[in-house]
């Protein structure tokens, strides 16, 4: 078997790793040999994630982290790098929804609460930027690294079911990927994004699980006519984190059952 996708001895730091896509990406890395640091603001989720890792025999450490606190991000990333002696992969995945879609009155532009807007910007935009800052500070002197940002197809195109705070912050990180890829390439650092479509995650407080008819409608709206399981993100993250993606940088890749077909 080839070593294209092997991560043996690599170290990874994943934000939002307590559940959903972040957990799946971290697990995928571990299954391919990486030593993973799981970061999440949700202590209970983090404990559950760590228990699953331990049960599967994967090496991991966990750190409670609110990405609205840049100093805490820097400390957590530095600790992970010090603990393992290097940091090969950083995933800026932590994100939240916020704000109703423009098709609902609560989502009209004049009705968006600025506190909601600011909070989403803090997590989805500033939190991602600060995570990349911390990653770059470690990876530049290493002269190697892989950075993956969780964007969204909402950041690539808008629709009536988009809400302002989420859509606009996800669009911002798409451009962040492009720009950081340019700056960091001379340091042999790859910067890419994943743009998920409909995945069954706990986003919006688990709404997709509470409202199965909503989930079904979202799945039916894409060419593959289904929602994705979070584990289906593993392969794409692995491509971008491993030797298999040696010449890919500056890309934001949709994984959406064909929703964007772009």
């Amino acid at each position, binding site marked *: *078997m*080839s070593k294209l996708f092997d991560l043996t001895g690599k170290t990874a730091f994943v934000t939002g790793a307590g559940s959903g896509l972040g957990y799946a990406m971290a697990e995928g890395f571990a299954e391919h040999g990486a030593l993973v640091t799981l970061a999440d603001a949700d202590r209970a989720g983090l404990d559950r994630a760590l228990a699953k890792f331990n049960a599967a025999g994967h090496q991991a450490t966990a750190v409670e982290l609110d990405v609205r606190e840049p100093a805490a991000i820097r400390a957590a990333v530095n600790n992970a790098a010090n603990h393992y002696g290097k940091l090969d992969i950083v995933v800026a995945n932590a994100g939240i929804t916020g704000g109703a879609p423009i098709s609902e009155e609560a989502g009209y532009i004049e009705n968006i609460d600025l506190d909601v807007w600011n909070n989403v910007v803090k997590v989805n935009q500033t939190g991602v930027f600060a995570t990349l800052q911390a990653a770059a500070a470690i990876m530049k002197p290493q002269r190697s690294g892989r950075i993956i940002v969780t964007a969204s197809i909402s950041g690539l195109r808008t629709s009536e079911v988009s809400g302002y705070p989420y859509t606009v912050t996800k669009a911002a990180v798409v451009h962040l990927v492009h720009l950081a890829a340019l700056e960091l390439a001379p340091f042999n650092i790859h910067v890419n994004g994943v743009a998920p479509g409909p995945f069954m995650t706990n986003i919006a407080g688990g709404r997709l699980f509470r409202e199965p008819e909503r989930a079904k409608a979202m799945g039916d709206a894409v060419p593959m006519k289904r929602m994705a399981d979070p584990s289906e993100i593993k*392969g*794409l993250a692995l*491509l971008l984190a491993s030797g298999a993606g040696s010449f890919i940088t500056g*890309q934001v890749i949709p994984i959406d059952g064909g929703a964007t077909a772009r």
Partner: protein
Amino acid sequence: MGRLQDKVVIITGGARGIGAAFSKAVAAEGAIVIVSDVRDGAGTVQEIEAAQGRAAFVACDVSSAQSTTDLVNEVVKRHGRIDAVVNNAAIFANLKRQAFFDIDEKEWDDVMAVNVRGPFLLTKAVAPVMMRQKSGKIVNIASGTVFKGQTGITHYVASKGAIVAFTRCVARELGDHNINVNAIAPGLTMSEGVIANPDMSGGGSSATMNSRAFKREQKPQDLTGTLVFLCSSDSDFMTGQTLVVDGGSVTH
């Protein structure tokens, strides 16, 4: 176990260059590779077998409906199924750079016949097989030049633009059948054909290199990871996409 263990994969244009690299890479992941080409693909097959891989050569001219149908029938006869088709065969490396108004009609048509009609015909031939299976992976090879409006090889760039569009359309049509259709858009890749043609590997290639975030030459091996990913179950929720693998030259 490889990532493509026992999968039956057809690779067109597999005799040399990127297609040969693709053939060897999927074989290394456990696939049964059908190396297909208008050229003799025995060399690729021998290399795969020498590395304990499984491969066979089946000749095919992708611009011919008869030939693509024969290819599909032959593979189904031998293996009973087709898990992935890589539409890689294309006219590129032998082209000379010229202004678009100097391209003669015959050369334009030849490029379109192989680069556009070819993937259309082979995808059309294999679709019923994959629909019966309720599974399949189609991987088309586009080009980063589409997003740059690269001059000098306008027929080629236009043909690859058609492949990006074709990929999107067919993905939408075949999604219901659990068939994934995606494309890879490489940058200028130093295959033996490109190296042999100074019009391709000369001054223009260093300009291409300098347009990249990673300022180095692109090798066929830089594409194999993405190809394996798109042929494997790892990409089951991805369809209609064109993945740019070009060292960060195009960010679209």
